[in-house]
C-alpha cells in the first residue's frame, strides 16, 4: 500500500514519517526543511506500507518549486491513501489544505499533530466532531514521542477500503459557471477541480492532467472557446477573472472558520505570549543583532572547548594502535612497502581525520541542530532580509547560508525554498563562503596553534573569520545581482514558526551518532584512498625525486605568491573530494618529504609546520583559502544537479577560487610591505 504524507510546512510530517518507518529523515523547526521526496517502509498487521514524505505546502494551487512536487503528487500521484498532517495549534489554516485534498480523494486520514504543544497553549480540539464533519478519520498525535502512531495506522488500513462521503468545498456563485463545463470533463477526477483549473487557465495542471488521462484540455480549441464564453459571462455578471482564485479560497477559508468554531476552543487568549516576547528580543535591531553574533560565538566556543578532550583521547589511542598495527603486519612478513603504505598512508590519514576532524564536527552539529529545533533560524532570515534586499536577494538566503554551516551541499539543495530562480542561483553560488562542518576543524586547529591558545579569544577570532565569510557572501551576492544575475528582489514572504522546546538529549545522541557514522563513512570512502594515493605519490620516485616532490615543487612558486607553499596547495587539490582531509594530507606531505617521523601530540604538529617554514601569515592564508576555494566535489555535483547547468557549476567553482587567490595575494602583499 502506498501512503503519502502531506501537510502545511513545519507541522511535523518528517517526524511522523520517522515515527512510522523508524528512519531518520531530517527534521527542523522551520518551513521548508524537506525539499525532496523520501521513501520508507512499515509493516503493520501484515500489510506493507510504502510511506512517502513530501515537502510541505500551504495549498494545492500554489507554485513554488518544492511545492509543485506535492501538488502533482496529490493530484496525479500513485497512492492508496494520504495522511494529511495538521498543526494542532493552527487547525484553521491547516484545514484549508485538508479541504482541497478532500476534493480529489476520500482516502484520507487527518493527523492532528503537536497536540502536546496545543495542550500547553490550552487549545482544546474535539477530534470526533471534526471527523464527523469531514467524513474521514481524525487522529491526534505527538510525533516526537510516537504517541498516536498506532491509531494512525489503524485508521489508515480502514480508510483504504472504505468509500465514505467526505466534505466537499461549496463553490457558491462559482458553481453556476463550473456546471457549464461538466459535460466535457470526464468522470475519473473531481470535475470541480478540473473546472476551476480550466477557468484559471492553469496550464501546469492541465498538461499534467492531459498526460495522465490522455485528454487534450490544454490544446483543444473547443474547450478554449467554452472557457472564454464562460469567463465572458462571469465578467458580465460582475465577476473578475482575478476573482476566481480569491473566491475559491474565500469559500474554503470561510468554511474552515465555521468548522473550527465548532471543534476548537482556545481557553487562553494569550496562549502565545512567550513566543511574542522571544520574538521581540530576537528581532529587535540591537538585541537581535547581539544575540545573533553572540550565539555564533557561543556555539563556536563550546565546540572548541569540548572538542579538545575527545580529540586528545582519540589521538593517543590511535597512535598507540599504530605501532601495534605495524608490528602485527610485519609479523606476517608482508612486504615492507605494503606495510608502510597501509600504516603510514591509509591508517594515518584515517586516524587524523577521525581524531582531529571528527570531534569538532560531532559537537558543532548538535548545537546547530538545537538552534534549528528551537525555531531560531527563521528569525535570522527576518533580521537579515534588509541586507539581503540591498544585495538583490531575500532573507531566505540566510536560511540556506546557515544550512551551509552544516554542509554546503545541504545548503545548495535547501535553496529550493527560494521561489525566484535568480535568487536561488545567488544562494547556490555563494553558499560555500560559509565554512562547512568539514572545514571548521582546520580553522580551529590552526587558530589554536598559530594565533591564540586561549579558547575564548580563539572562538572570537573564529567568529571574525566567519563574519568575514558572511560579509563576502553579501558582497558577491550584490556583485552578481548587478552583473550576471541582474535584477532586484521585490517579493518575499516568510513564516515565523512557533518556538518549540528542542529535545536536547535526543538531538545530541542522534547527531553525534549520525555525524560519526557520516564522517566514518566518508573516511573510509574518501580519506583512506586519498591517504594511499598521497603515500604512493610520496614514495614513488622518478629521476631522484618523488612524484609528490615534483608536484609540490611545481606548485610552490604559485603557493608562495599566495603566502602558502606547494604542499598546501597540493593538499587543497587532493582534498577536493572532502574538505576534512586537507590537513591530514598536508601533514602527510610534510612528513613524507622527510622532516619528522613520529607525531604524538599537537606540539609536535606545530613544530612540523614551523620546520616547513610556516608562520602566522601562512596560517592566516591557509585559513582564508580554506574558506574561499572551490567547493568540495559533493557540493559541486549537487550544484550541477540543482541548476542543471554546467555554466553555473563552473562559476560556483571559479568564483570562490578566484576570490581566495585574490584575498591571499592581498594579505601576502600587505605583509611583505
Amino acid at each position: 500500500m502506498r501512503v503519502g504524507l502531506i501537510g502545511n510546512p513545519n507541522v511535523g510530517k518528517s517526524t511522523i514519517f520517522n515515527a512510522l518507518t523508524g528512519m531518520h529523515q531530517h527534521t527542523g523547526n522551520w518551513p521548508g526543511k524537506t525539499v525532496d521526496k523520501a521513501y520508507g517502509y512499515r509493516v503493520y498487521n501484515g500489510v506493507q506500507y510504502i510511506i512517502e514524505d513530501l515537502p510541505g505546502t500551504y495549498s494545492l494551487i500554489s507554485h513554488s518549486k518544492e511545492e509543485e512536487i506535492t501538488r502533482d503528487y496529490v493530484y496525479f500521484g500513485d497512492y492508496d491513501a494520504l495522511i494529511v498532517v495538521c498543526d494542532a495549534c493552527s487547525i484553521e489554516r491547516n484545514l484549508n489544505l485538508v479541504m482541497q485534498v478532500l476534493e480529489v480523494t476520500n482516502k484520507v486520514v487527518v493527523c492532528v499533530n503537536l497536540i502536546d504543544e496545543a495542550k500547553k497553549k490550552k487549545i482544546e480540539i474535539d477530534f470526533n466532531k471534526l471527523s464527523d464533519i469531514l467524513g474521514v478519520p481524525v487522529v491526534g498525535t505527538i510525533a516526537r514521542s510516537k504517541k498516536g502512531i498506532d491509531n494512525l495506522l489503524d485508521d489508515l488500513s480502514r480508510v483504504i477500503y472504505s468509500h465514505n462521503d467526505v466534505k466537499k468545498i461549496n463553490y457558491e456563485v462559482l458553481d453556476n459557471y463550473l456546471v457549464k463545463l461538466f459535460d466535457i470533463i470526464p468522470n475519473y477526477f473531481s470535475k470541480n477541480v478540473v473546472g476551476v483549473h480550466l477557468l484559471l487557465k492553469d496550464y501546469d495542471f492541465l498538461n499534467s492532467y492531459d498526460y495522465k488521462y490522455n485528454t487534450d484540455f490544454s490544446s483543444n480549441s473547443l474547450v478554449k472557446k467554452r472557457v472564454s464564453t464562460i469567463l465572458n459571462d462571469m465578467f458580465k455578471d460582475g465577476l473578475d477573472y482575478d476573482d476566481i482564485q480569491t473566491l475559491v479560497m474565500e469559500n474554503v477559508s470561510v468554511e474552515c472558520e465555521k468548522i473550527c468554531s465548532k471543534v476548537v476552543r482556545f481557553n487562553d487568549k494569550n496562549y502565545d505570549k512567550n513566543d511574542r516576547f522571544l520574538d521581540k528580543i530576537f528581532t529587535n535591531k540591537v538585541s537581535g543583532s547581539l544575540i545573533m553574533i553572540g550565539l555564533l560565538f557561543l556555539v563556536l566556543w563550546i565546540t572548541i572547548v569540548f572538542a579538545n578532550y575527545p580529540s586528545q583521547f582519540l589521538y593517543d589511542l590511535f597512535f598507540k594502535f599504530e605501532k601495534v598495527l605495524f608490528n602485527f603486519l610485519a609479523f606476517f612478513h608482508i612486504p615492507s612497502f605494503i606495510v608502510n603504505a597501509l600504516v603510514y598512508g591509509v591508517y594515518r590519514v584515517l586516524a587524523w581525520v577521525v581524531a582531529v576532524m571528527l570531534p569538532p564536527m560531532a559537537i558543532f552539529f548538535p548545537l546547530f541542530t538545537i538552534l534549528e529545533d528551537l525555531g531560531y533560524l527563521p528569525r535570522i532570515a527576518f533580521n537579515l532580509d534588509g541586507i539581503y534586499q540591498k544585495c538583490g536577494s531575500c532573507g531566505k538566503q540566510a536560511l540556506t547560508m546557515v544550512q551551509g554551516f552544516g554542509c554546503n551541499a545541504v545548503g545548495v539543495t535547501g535553496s529550493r525554498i527560494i521561489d525566484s530562480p535568480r535568487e536561488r542561483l545567488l544562494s547556490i553560488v555563494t553558499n560555500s563562503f560559509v565554512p562547512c562542518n568539514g572545514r571548521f576543524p582546520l580553522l580551529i586547529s590552526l587558530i589554536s596553534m598559530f594565533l591564540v591558545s586561549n579558547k575564548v579569544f580563539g572562538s572570537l577570532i573564529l567568529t571574525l573569520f566567519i563574519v568575514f565569510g558572511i560579509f563576502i557572501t553579501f558582497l558577491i551576492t550584490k556583485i552578481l545581482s548587478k552583473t550576471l544575475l541582474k535584477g532586484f528582489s521585490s517579493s518575499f514572504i516568510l513564516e515565523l514558526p512557533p518556538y518549540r522546546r528542542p529535545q536536547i538529549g535526543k538531538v545530541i545522541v542522534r547527531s553525534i551518532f549520525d555525524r560519526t557514522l557520516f564522517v566514518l563513512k566518508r573516511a573510509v570512502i574518501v580519506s583512506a584512498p586519498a591517504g594511499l594515493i598521497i603515500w604512493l605519490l610520496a614514495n614513488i620516485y622518478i629521476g631522484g625525486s618523488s612524484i609528490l616532490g615534483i608536484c609540490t615543487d611545481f606548485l610552490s612558486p604559485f603557493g608562495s605568491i599566495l603566502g602558502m607553499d606547494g604542499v598546501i596547495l597540493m593538499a587543497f587539490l587532493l582534498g577536493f573530494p572532502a574538505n576534512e582531509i586537507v590537513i591530514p594530507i598536508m601533514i602527510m606531505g610534510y612528513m613524507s618529504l622527510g622532516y619528522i617521523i613520529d607525531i604524538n601530540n599537537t606540539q609536535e604538529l606545530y613544530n612540523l609546520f614551523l620546520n616547513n617554514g610556516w608562520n602566522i601569515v601562512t596560517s592566516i592564508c591557509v585559513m582564508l583559502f580554506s574558506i574561499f576555494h572551490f567547493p568540495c566535489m559533493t557540493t559541486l555535483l549537487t550544484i550541477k544537479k540543482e541548476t542543471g547547468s554546467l555554466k553555473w557549476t563552473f562559476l560556483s567553482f571559479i568564483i570562490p577560487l578566484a576570490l581566495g587567490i585574490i584575498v591571499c595575494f592581498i594579505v601576502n602583499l600587505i605583509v611583505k610591505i
Partner: protein
Amino acid sequence: MKLNDLKLYEEGIINKVTASEDIKRRFLDIGINRGVKIKPILSNKTMRAYLIKGTVIGIRLNDSKNIEVII
C-alpha cells in the same frame, strides 16, 4: 487604508488584495484573503511580521503595500 499604514499591534481586516498573480497566489496560500483579521507585531526596515489566524507571517513592505485593510 493600506496594510502598511496599520500601526504596530493595531488589528485590521483585509479588504482587498491587488498584487500580481504570483504574489496573490502566495498570499492566498497562507490565508491572506478578504475578511481575515491581521495584526502587525514585529517590524524592521524591509519587513513586518503579522499575526494572522494564529500564525506569524513576515511580509516585505513592498508586498504588503498591495493589501488593503479596514479597521
